[in-house]
């Protein structure tokens, strides 16, 4: 009874998001910041699979997002490919870089691995900043075109308008979310959870721990690449600033805030971290102070993030309910 209920809840939430531009047609600014949040939620799903489900921390994930972003930006800017092929190409190239990084690094013990991912993020960002002939250096790659309008017969969706791009971002998010769901609920996902809980037990039961880590690291980097490609199409420009170290740290904060190891964690985290401060008009400098304080509170009172807090509340309510049922 519990699982279908959760699935229904997620579907209802998605439906609500899809209807948002129609329910509130005037709220263009809200749509704009929600779209930005979705651009973060996609790489956050990649990080959630890595960190929340497998127990590997990556502090350089926006570097992989950048690889996907620049790949897609170059293809679209020069008219070599449309949006969807560019997105796929971005995922493939980011995944390939993830695979190359993972091969030597995933044999390291966890704390060394974290430091190496930090370095990889910085190295990738330095490359974005300095390979002027390819990435446009500090100026980046401006003038990325939005996808061509989509004619659905009943209506034409224009991706240059906020509503149209919001639907596009939501669809990309939904696809990555579905992929996350498939992985987590599969035998592969069970092996990843076993690795997080006890690598020795996982290996003793027949799991090739290194190969599994490499596979999920590659998938995770590819998902980050999709998010990066989406973000630069939305902003119509790729710039190194979008993929610097601080952005990688923000991504980790999004996953922790939303709840690592929960399917909805990345979305909740991204909306709260990106959209809420925008909506409340919090100054950028103050944002870090506020979120620093929130993180301390979370670490003290809700170590499993907001989704963990919600799950604990629901559990408490249902157990109280069943207690009442037994002792009326």
């Amino acid at each position, binding site marked *: 009874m519990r699982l279908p209920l959760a699935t229904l809840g997620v579907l209802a939430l998605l439906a609500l998001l899809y209807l948002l531009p129609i329910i509130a047609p005037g709220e263009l600014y809200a749509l704009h910041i929600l779209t930005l949040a979705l651009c973060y939620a996609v790489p956050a799903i990649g990080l959630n699979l890595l960190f929340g489900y497998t127990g590997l921390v990556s502090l350089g994930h926006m570097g992989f997002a950048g690889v996907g972003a620049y790949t897609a930006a170059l293809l679209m800017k020069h008219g070599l490919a449309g949006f969807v092929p560019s997105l796929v190409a971005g995922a493939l190239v980011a995944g390939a870089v993830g695979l190359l990084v993972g091969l030597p690094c995933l044999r390291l013990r966890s704390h060394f691995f974290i430091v190496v991912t930090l370095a990889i993020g910085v190295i990738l960002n330095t490359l974005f900043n300095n390979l002027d002939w390819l990435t446009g250096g500090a100026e980046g790659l401006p003038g990325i075109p939005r996808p061509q309008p989509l004619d659905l017969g009943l209506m034409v969706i224009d991706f240059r308008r906020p509503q149209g791009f919001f639907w596009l971002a939501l669809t990309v998010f939904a696809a990555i979310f579905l992929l996350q769901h498939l992985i987590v609920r599969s*035998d592969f996902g069970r092996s990843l959870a*076993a690795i997080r809980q006890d690598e020795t037990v996982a*290996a003793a039961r027949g799991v090739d721990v290194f190969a599994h880590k490499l596979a999920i690291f590659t998938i995770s980097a590819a998902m980050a690449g999709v998010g990066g490609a989406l973000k630069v199409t939305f902003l119509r420009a790729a710039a190194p600033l979008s993929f610097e170290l601080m952005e990688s740290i923000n991504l980790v904060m999004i996953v922790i805030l939303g709840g690592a190891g929960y399917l909805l964690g990345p979305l909740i985290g991204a909306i709260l971290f990106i959209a809420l401060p925008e909506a409340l008009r919090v100054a950028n400098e103050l944002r870090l102070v506020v979120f620093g304080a929130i993180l301390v509170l979370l670490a003290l009172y809700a170590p499993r993030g907001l989704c963990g807090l919600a799950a604990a509340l629901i559990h408490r309510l249902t157990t109280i309910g069943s207690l009442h049922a037994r002792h009326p």
Partner: protein
Amino acid sequence: MPAILEIAGVRKAFAGIVALDDVALTIAQPGIYGLIGPNGAGKTTLFDVICGRQLADSGTIRLAGERIEALRVHRRARLGISRTFQECRVLLEETCLDNVLFATQDKRLGAELVQTATRSTRARDAILAEARRLLALVNLDAYANAPAAALSYGQRRLLEIVSVLATRPRILLLDEPASGVNPTLLVTLRDFLRRLYDERQIVFLVVEHNMEFIMSLASHIVVMHQGRVLAQGAPAEVQASPQVIEAYLG
């Protein structure tokens, strides 16, 4: 027919200290084998070398005739060498049922990725029924949906043992199954192990310090001393051997 397990000339040293010194051991028939010896005799190191957690410096290990001494832990586990741990390790966040189900699944990465894509639920009902039956064998069926962390230490040991059996091993290595178990429950534990053995008829190789427990459980005892196999035979024979008595007392 080759022996189920054949260990020859295995040596393992740690920073100059010889833990295993030319160990030879052949297990030809299924049965419950007790591996005993004073502290530091090399029992746990031999376990680690058999399951692949440590690699031997030299020597050969054959499983049904095939050499396995160079394979890593997960490869040996897939070939049928499974172990439990002295400190008892289960997946604490998973339910008892999920612990057993995880053990039964095909863990080759390729097979898992295909399963993710196809959502195949290969004979799920049969697997589920088998997992529940295994839990019932050790009276854990009432805890099927409880997280392993909620179990008592003794129950976790039983969960670990049935989880490992669910991988369908050819050799089950049990590292001190009686340690940390309430003495009043030892008889129950022994009965469970007998019942599981009677059902599977594979090799159970059991390291154990509790003499009363192992002598009444095993049909065959292997005694190690100073990194070598000192004696082997039926429990009564071994207990009467002057060499063994000297090793324990001397």
